């Protein structure tokens, strides 16, 4: 059992070790800096890019795309997932289609989205949506379906109408698990966005990474990767904080923020 403080310092150690290995690799074994720039050079690049505002602008742009695309997906998947979990009709209607769709690699859909949506923002949303929506419906459906049947029965014998069973029992009971589903899918959304930005974009972190590959500006690529990782870390933290506050009754033994 580790307490909060030692959890943080232990996590810090793992990052420190990675940086140390990195540093050693570049210094002691003098790896070519085009392949692997040293931590110092990457820090320089980060500083430079932060200063001219480009890095923050791209980060903001990518984050916004991820968030909007993911939000559309969540808004659409929540009710459909709930219906799939609670109605035979909707299950028969949706489940097989979803199972089919979720096996289509999103990358293979990029050409089509370009054709339909061009290279603007809506194409980015479309890619993220296609990457997360079908999966999310199935996850939501699973989360809702695993709510204890007896709890619904208890509500029914207390006089809860169908609608009340949905909103006052099913939804709150499934909420911890739904928040987990959302946290996972926003992570995937990042992956799909970077794919979309690498194929067709004139701004964003994916774009920045691809463009700098042409100039062999490995330090900028690393700066971009670090930024994606950081945003991911912050997002994850935000979600855990939301779970911690919104569903305190579902806190697990090893949960902390």
């Amino acid at each position, binding site marked *: 059992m580790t307490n909060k403080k030692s959890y943080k310092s232990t996590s810090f150690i793992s990052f420190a070790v990675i940086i140390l290995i990195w540093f050693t690799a570049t210094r002691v074994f003098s790896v070519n800096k085009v392949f692997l720039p040293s931590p110092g050079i990457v820090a320089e690049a980060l500083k430079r890019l932060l200063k001219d505002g480009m890095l923050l602008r791209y980060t903001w742009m990518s984050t916004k795309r991820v968030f909007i695309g993911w939000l559309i997906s969540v808004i659409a998947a929540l009710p459909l997932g709930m219906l799939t979990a609670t109605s035979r009709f909707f299950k028969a209607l949706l489940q097989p289609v979803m199972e089919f769709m979720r096996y289509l690699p999103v990358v293979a859909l990029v050409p089509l989205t370009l054709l339909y949506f061009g290279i603007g923002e809506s194409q980015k949303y479309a890619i993220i949506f296609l990457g997360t929506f079908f999966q999310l419906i199935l996850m939501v459906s699973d989360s809702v379906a695993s709510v*204890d049947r*007896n*709890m619904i*029965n*208890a*509500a*029914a*014998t*207390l*006089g*809860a*109408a169908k609608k*009340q069973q949905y909103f*006052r*029992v099913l939804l*709150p*009971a499934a*909420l911890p698990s739904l928040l987990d589903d959302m946290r996972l899918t926003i992570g995937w959304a990042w992956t799909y966005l970077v794919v979309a930005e690498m194929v067709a974009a004139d701004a964003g972190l994916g774009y920045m990474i691809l463009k700098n590959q042409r100039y062999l500006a490995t330090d900028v690529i690393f700066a971009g990767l670090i930024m994606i990782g950081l945003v991911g870390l912050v997002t994850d933290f935000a979600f855990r904080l939301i779970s911690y506050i919104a*569903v*305190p*009754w*579902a806190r697990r033994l090893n949960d902390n923020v």
Partner: protein
Amino acid sequence: MSELEIRNLNKTFRVTKRSSVTALDNISLNVGSGEFAVLVGPSGCGKSTLLNIVAGLDTCDPGGEVLLDGKQIKGPGADRGMVFQSYTLFPWLSVRKNIEFGPSLRNVSEPERRTVAEKFIKETGLTGFEDMLPGGLSGGMKQRVAIARTLANSPKMLLMDEPFGALDAQTRAVMQEMLSKVWQKERTTVLFVTHDIDEAILMGTKIYVMSRRPGRIKQMIPVNISGERGHKVTLSPEFLAIKQQIMDLIWEESEQASMEVNGDGI
């Protein structure tokens, strides 16, 4: 006060396309207003199935009738409160909010809800636990909340499916006493399922002994024990006589079962 009447109730479960299981066979029984009826019988004889049908969570085969105050029941409703063996509290609501859940569904005003909840918090011995979440409660406490939650809804009758089945012997005894007291006060009509013969005699005003599958009512035994029904009564001659009678009925059942098994050459 309300009366439950069950007439010619059958229940068959479809297992596969071809085969089915008869769980309940021609059940007729009557729980009069303010009575505490207990169902005992071997595991799998259909006690839970019967209770679920009365609760409206399941349906019986066509032809059977379940009447509450002369009216056919249709689906689950607040007039028949149910306490389950498994814990069914809403873990995101405090003890008080759990108890207020039923009234809140019907938009009963906040102060009114409070008053009702407060009353049953007292009666079920939950004072001091009002603001706790169910996750932090012991099994016995959870069932107290479940009972209070059901009573706060002022049901016409109370259905209880082995509510103390998961509790240890001591907690069970305390809970029986608590429920007895509450029932003396409220005089709700109750249909109660248990495995425990002592519990049945201690709580019930009459006991239905069921046969093993397909479940039939084997016999109805009225419980006429004078005076207080505390735990001391379990040693009184009246109590023991009823216990003997029920044991004989159940023993008969299991002997028949073993004879049939032998007859089949197993």
